[in-house]
């Protein structure tokens, strides 16, 4: 059998130029049961990627929630993702923050590290360097809270591995445009 991409069949045909982009989308939706399932089902059903997804009600009186999705794909796929999201009835707006220009992206992580002696001191020093805060401490462990861009969190977490990393909980990305204008 020809491998996907090698064949000329409509079933196997794939785009040959593959510039994979990473986009952060803000999706404003009605805050109603099932809306998250619709969004996630669309991504899994059509084979799109979700890197992170966060959701919370943002406008209580209007019953609106904001879903922030970080996704990757070719420019054509990213375009399809936005158009397919637009077909969902509870979706009010989709803003591609990556295209909108200057944006702020932040993620929060809680990081548990266990150890004594030298590694324990080193973990604390690194935490200070990364502006992570100590949220809990015992004689043999710390829980750090760190906020920042996802790659900063990645870096901090990987540094903690040899120092006794036990557990990580991350929120996923929250994002907003810079400047005075709202969505």
């Amino acid at each position, binding site marked *: 059998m020809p491998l996907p991409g090698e064949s000329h069949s409509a079933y*196997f045909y794939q785009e040959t130029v593959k510039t994979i982009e990473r986009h952060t989308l803000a999706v404003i939706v009605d805050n109603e049961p099932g809306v998250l399932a619709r969004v996630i*089902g669309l991504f899994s059903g059509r084979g799109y990627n979700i890197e992170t997804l966060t959701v919370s009600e943002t406008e209580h009186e209007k019953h609106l929630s904001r879903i922030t999705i970080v996704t990757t794909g070719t420019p054509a796929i990213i375009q*399809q993702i936005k158009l397919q999201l637009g077909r969902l009835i*509870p979706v009010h707006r989709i803003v591609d923050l990556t295209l909108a220009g200057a944006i702020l992206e932040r993620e929060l992580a809680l990081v548990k590290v266990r150890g004594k002696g030298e590694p324990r001191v080193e973990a604390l020093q690194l935490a200070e360097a990364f502006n992570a805060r100590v949220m809990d401490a015992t004689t043999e462990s710390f829980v750090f809270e760190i906020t920042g861009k996802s790659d900063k969190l990645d870096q901090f977490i990987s540094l903690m591995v040899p120092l006794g990393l036990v557990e990580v909980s991350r929120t996923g990305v929250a994002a907003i445009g810079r400047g005075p204008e709202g969505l």
Partner: protein
Amino acid sequence: MAREMTGAQMVVEALIDQGVEHIFGYPGGAALPIYDEIFQQDKVQHILVRHEQAAGHAAEGYARSTGKVGVVLVTSGPGATNMVTPLTDALMDSVPLVCISAQVPTHLIGTDAFQECDTVGITRPCTKHNFLVKRIEDLAGVLHEAFRIARSGRPGPVVVDVPKDIQFKTGIYENLKGAVRTSYRPRLEGDERAIRHAVALMASAKKPVIYSGGGVVNSGPRACELLRELASLTGFPLTSTLTGLGAYPASGKAWLGMLGMHGTYEANLAMHGCDVMVGIGVRFDDRITGRTDAFSPNSKKIHIDIDASSFNKNIRVDVPILGDVAHVLETMIRIWKEVVPKPDAAAIAPWWKQVNAWRAKKSLRYQKSADVIMPQYAIERLYQLTKERNTYITTEVGQHQMWAAQHYGFEKPNHWMTSGGLGTMGYGFPSAIGVQTAHRDALVVCVAGDASIQMNIQELSTAVQHDLPVKVMILNNQYMGMVRQWQQLLHGNRLSHSYNDAMPDFVKLAEAYGAMGLRAQRPAELDDAIEAMIASTKPVIFDCRVASMANCLPMIPSGKAHNEILLPDDVADEDIGDVIDAEGKQLV
């Protein structure tokens, strides 16, 4: 006027306020309060089917032949799960449906109660939208919004799941028809700048083609009139997808026949060779495009559609125009008249000459026979003997479906119902029942296959009970012909499970149900049998024995380009297995 009533009464009241005259359904425990209300009124007529899937397809046939929303009522659990196929079918072919499903009482949801299933979860990917109504205060608004969503924009199926306790609860009902509950507001008008750009391309075209689809029929009769006007104003040749047949008349000057996998030579080569393509209410699916990287390589593509996600999904287009077909064509024709006061027929004359040369290949030709009924001949005779009447044709899925599409001349929109996107065997017969429900005096013929008809054969009982004299013409080739054709073409002629063994005697079967049974074995008997079928006031099963090994051509094997089309002259029915080489066989 707001009035107090139970949830079950609200369901019926909302149907009446929406102008619904017929619904298709099947009762069960959770739906009994609604059925009790149905019993106590006579404005909404209920057609009792024999399987919920058939209710869904009947509602589809009803919707497609009337332009109205088709309505289904089913019970919880198995009633709802039996609707998954017709909902998916309606989603794929953009058919407006509202399915009201009963649900277990709210306090039992999540407990694995008797006949509980997660209906909104199961139907989320196969509906345009769905609702679970947990508060009586929401019911009236949700019911009317369901109709609005189903019929507006790109039409589609909507499920409203109503728990049994909500059906019993009382609340205030208000006729909210036309009210807007969600933020859904599809855009109808096309962008005038884009339309001007499109017209400029069209005006300069040397080798234009109009590629029209089911979206034109969905947009309505006005859109079909405008399509005809556009074709005659521009003088462009026109082809259509399977679901778009009838929007432009088969007798029209511009008509090239259907395009795609089993489309005509001239339609597919015109698509391949054109310099400007005007896609109207189409979605460039794989049965149309074949090999996408070789699809119409030298054309500028204009694409009119109400669903923005259709643009660039499969094929990159140059001028996307978002809007309702009728609205956009109205503007397009106005601008065309302004830009091209006198069309220059000479400019596209060489193109027409080329198109006519392709036409001369007569790609729908087949070997005639005096001994056996060729399936293509059967459709030709059906057309000749029914064309003067108001005739609606539905089909099942397989070779017979393609032969009906190729050989029946469709002159009007909304007279042709077939399962295009999903290709659902079992669609055609219940769909015909739905059509006949809406058009009591019309002739409704389901062109069926001997395998497909057995998928919803139980609906004979529905047709007999409700005095719906639908005519089922089975092109009986003793095979799952389309499956066998692929096995011959691509799997070394190993006919794995595609022979229809142990077939019922269809004549006796019809009679057992109280319908009429007919059979024809030879060409000489065909016309009489068709006439007898038409004349019957009962439902008819006509077992039309056709050549068993006939194959459906032309064919573009999937994964091939339009100009790699197989013609009847290239492939005799006997040696179809040798046509595609080993490498090619892996591509489909």
